[in-house]
């Protein structure tokens, strides 16, 4: 146990390191901050709710930098795309917070928040999963036909629609290999920012699918670029929370120690998989997050008579961190086996990249 002088609580420091590590793996792999998983965990460790949010947001900023450094080395960051989105994201976050305040004023904040979460994440989950299953099938066919597999396969026709919008100025994103209207990028930033501010999350699990299905970036670039956004939105959140007195810096430091290793592993793991594997993870995390928000909503609409639903949602929220980590670890393990010519499950073969190049 460690006594946190500012938070005024005694909490197990090793669990903070472990939480940072596990969320770091997931965050580095699918490009999310993981706020929706960390805040409840910190409350369980004894931190008050407002401190949990502040520590979480501050650690996300630091972890975002750690992950971005690695994704930059892997060539997964499109700086033009990221910086074009920043202003829109910031504006959106602020408007999202105001929108939440409006619903709070009406006394509908919890219902509105949970309802919006379920609707949005549920829709994203269904679309992402369907599209990823189609991509997986196409990759499997290519394996059977003995074709060379691409790093990315996407079957969505949405990006072509948005890239075809003739609204000046057009932006050429060299790394992402897309030419798209600046307005589309800004709009993605604003919309995902509003949702992030409204739902009180970093917005990665909304922004990554938006970058893939609206802008047309590959999943790897969407992850790397989103992490740059998370650095900016996390930094803004860190400043706001710090001024409000919601941050114990040493708690953040413990989490960052774990996140350093986790984020490295998660980021490097993306080099061993194809785009659809990352999108599967994204779909699973969306499904679990939808359940996590949906069960308390049902309880709320039933007049609080089904409190056990909220308890189940808490277990799901904390359990998904472990589940997602194990899934990522299994993918890396299968990639390692495949690279050595050993047996791997048939479904995993098209999702893995062989012969990841390293060396001087």
């Amino acid at each position: 146990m460690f006594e946190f002088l500012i938070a005024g609580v005694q909490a197990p420091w090793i669990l903070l390191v472990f939480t940072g590590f596990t969320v770091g793996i997931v965050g580095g792999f699918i490009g999310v901050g993981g706020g929706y998983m960390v805040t409840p965990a910190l409350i369980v460790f004894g931190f008050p709710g407002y401190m949990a949010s502040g520590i979480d947001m501050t650690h996300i900023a630091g972890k975002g930098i750690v992950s971005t450094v690695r994704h930059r080395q892997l060539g997964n960051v499109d700086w033009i795309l990221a910086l074009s989105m920043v202003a829109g994201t910031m504006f959106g976050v602020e408007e999202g917070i105001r929108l939440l305040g409006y619903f709070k004023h009406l006394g509908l904040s919890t219902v509105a928040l949970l309802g919006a979460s379920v609707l949005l994440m549920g829709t994203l989950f269904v679309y992402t999963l369907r599209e990823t299953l189609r991509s997986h099938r196409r990759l499997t066919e290519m394996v059977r036909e003995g074709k060379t597999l691409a790093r990315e396969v996407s079957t969505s026709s949405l990006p072509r629609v948005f890239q075809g919008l003739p609204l000046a100025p057009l932006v050429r994103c060299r790394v992402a290999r897309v030419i798209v209207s600046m307005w589309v990028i800004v709009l993605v930033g604003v919309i995902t920012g509003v949702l992030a501010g409204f739902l009180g999350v970093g917005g990665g699990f909304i922004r990554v699918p938006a970058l893939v299905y609206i802008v047309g970036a590959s999943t790897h670039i969407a992850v790397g670029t989103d992490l740059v956004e998370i650095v900016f939105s996390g930094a803004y959140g860190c400043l706001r929370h710090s001024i409000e007195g919601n941050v114990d810096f040493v708690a953040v430091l413990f989490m960052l120690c774990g996140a350093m290793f986790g984020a490295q592993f998660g980021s490097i793991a993306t080099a061993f998989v194809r785009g659809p594997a990352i999108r599967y993870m994204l779909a699973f995390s969306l499904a679990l997050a939808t359940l996590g928000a949906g069960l308390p909503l049902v309880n709320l609409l039933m007049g609080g008579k089904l409190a056990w639903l909220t308890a189940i949602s808490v277990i799901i929220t904390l359990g998904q961190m472990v589940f997602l980590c194990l899934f990522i670890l299994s993918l890396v393990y299968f990639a390692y086996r495949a690279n050595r010519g050993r047996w791997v499950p048939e479904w995993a073969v098209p999702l893995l990249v062989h012969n990841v190049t390293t060396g001087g």
Partner: protein
Amino acid sequence: MHTKFRWRALIKFLFWAVATIVVGAYAINTYTSGQLVRWYYFESRADGYAVNTKGFEQATREQPVYLTIGAFSDVRGLRAARVTKGSRLPEGTNGVVDLATVDEGTRVRLDRGQLVVSVPWQIKEAKGFKFRDGFTHKNIRTNPYAGLWNLIMVGLVGLCLGFLAEGFTDLVGLKFQKIDHSVGH
């Protein structure tokens, strides 16, 4: 691995290792010296009584805790210091009981020049979890520069840890090549 590359990786790793140690040591020293705590509990956000909540965590309605009111420069123990909005907080303060709460009298009341605490905390809920919400952190204003310090330090720690890890993997021969996104896209 080329000798030239190995030297570059070693220099990179050592540079960021030193930077990480310096930044980490400075951050921890700022925390343990009490500087960060002083910045955090900086000013009062309301008129009331500066207290250290550790002294009355066990208070109940049946067995309330009595705090001596005075112009103390340190409020650790069973002490309370009268503060006004915007005034600097005494040493050891971790919360301010505002006058409205005292006037209401259900949790804290005045009795013959002493502050009597009978309900030190309440159960609140966040994200489906219940937690004990007491007078700790209440009605205090953090030094805005501490917010900026947090931001700068988080940025520095993130950069140092990120490049330290990159230096380490370069050093052990795991220099990952950029992914070729042009293939099949």
